[in-house]
């Protein structure tokens, strides 16, 4: 009886260890393939990971957000939130952003900063794409800016860079993976539907992602940090919005 029991216990333990090892191995492999999101913990982390992994496997195929005709640009383009009222932002706004600079640091060869004129002198990209808010409304607009991949190339990111973090004048911070960072439709936009970025839409510079919901396209950018881990920044979940129910990955 004891032998029988101990053998059963042994088999169970063995299976447990094997299953745990297999799971651990799978998680490590998935992580290496870039299939584990920054907020993978907890019960919701399970579905977040399934969604992120599923869509990242899918976007290994040719993946370009639809672009539209100029005639399809929406008459109204609403925004949530207003321009920051903080002193540094208001001072830069007063000077028409002549003194504004975008700082880039972290895992880069040449950390530094760019003025708005410098960014505008880089090769630009204009795209007429859809912007959907997680609330349900959406609009189409034309965004013009410099592809993020160009700026990252300029500063020389390290090979093991994994996340690009963005910090704003209104206190938000968020991050994207390299798949989105290097995507041709990911731009640092300085104009929308005209020669400038409207104030409420994130002047002087905002991120414009084309394959995620609107809240990931942060406005009022001030700094970019390149990292290989989301853990060291803020609460370690990759975004200031995760705690409020906004997924880190919003490809939905």
């Amino acid at each position, binding site marked *: 009886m004891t032998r029988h029991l101990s053998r059963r216990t042994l088999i169970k333990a063995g299976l447990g260890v094997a299953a745990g090892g297999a799971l651990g191995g799978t998680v490590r492999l998935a992580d290496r393939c870039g299939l584990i999101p920054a907020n993978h913990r907890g019960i919701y982390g399970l579905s977040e990971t399934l969604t992120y992994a599923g869509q990242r496997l899918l976007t290994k195929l040719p993946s370009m957000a*639809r672009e539209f005709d100029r005639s399809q640009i929406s008459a109204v383009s609403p925004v949530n939130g207003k321009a920051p009222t903080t002193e540094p932002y208001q001072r830069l706004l007063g000077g028409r952003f002549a003194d504004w600079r975008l700082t880039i640091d972290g895992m880069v060869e040449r950390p530094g900063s760019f003025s708005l004129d410098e960014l505008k002198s880089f090769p630009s990209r204009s795209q007429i794409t859809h912007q959907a808010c997680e609330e*349900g409304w959406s609009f189409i607009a034309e965004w013009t800016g410099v592809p993020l991949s160009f700026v990252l190339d300029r500063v020389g990111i390290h090979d093991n860079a994994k996340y690009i973090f963005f910090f704003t004048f209104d206190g938000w911070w968020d991050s994207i993976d390299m798949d989105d960072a290097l995507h041709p439709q990911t731009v640092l936009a300085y104009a929308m539907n005209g020669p400038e970025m409207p104030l409420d839409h994130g002047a002087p510079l905002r991120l414009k992602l084309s394959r995620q919901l609107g809240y990931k396209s942060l406005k009022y950018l001030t700094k970019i940090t390149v990292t290989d881990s989301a853990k060291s920044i803020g609460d370690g979940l990759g975004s200031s919005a995760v705690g409020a129910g906004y997924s880190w990955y919003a490809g*939905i």
Partner: protein
Amino acid sequence: MAQVVPVPRLSVETSHAVGRPRHSAVVRITHWFTAVSFVVLLASGIAILLAHPRLYWGETGAVGSPSLIDLPLPFVLDVPIRGPGRYLHFLFAWVSVFTGLVYVAIGIPSRHLRTNLLPARGDFTVRAIRRVIENHLLFKRPTAEDLTTYNVLQRLSYSTVVFVLAPLILWTGLAMSPAVTSVFPVLVTVFGGQQSARTIHFFLACALMLFFMVHVALVCQSGFRSRMRAMITGHGGVRKEPS
């Protein structure tokens, strides 16, 4: 068709002794997974909808642009239900997708879908359909034979849910995903745009809710306890007649 026709007085124990459950274990398990998922998806869907209870047609839509329908619901923006609502919606979307895959993967080779769900050829006679409708209108309790198989209206409604509404609500959900449609734009363009897909998603949810309410009402009408027992234990499909 009728392998075992139990006589009306057949007790639960005898039915058990026959050995063949009214619903197979796979049907029972996937039924309850689906039931729980549906309720959570509906509640969390409402939480998401309340952030912007306006529906549009085409690619875009926002306050300030013409709507298709202004739902008579308040805009609820600052209540902490929407965040958990979204997380729950996607968690249970995955639960229902996996449940559906198991159901279909086992339902096809076991011929459950073919035998129990799709209407049989003889079902589409005027007489058969009229008999079912008459029984419903007269609030007739089902006979023992009725309880061993689905009638034509049951088959039609279950088939519509399984083969039409469920795949379409998943499809319109994916059509709202900017990442998925960046790979397969046709998923959204067939509906005429992202806002059209959102509107269709809403009406599919309404159709499923209607099915859910009628389904529960008819379960109550035909004997709540015996129907529940049949879907939980697999047995007891035959109601015990009061002696």
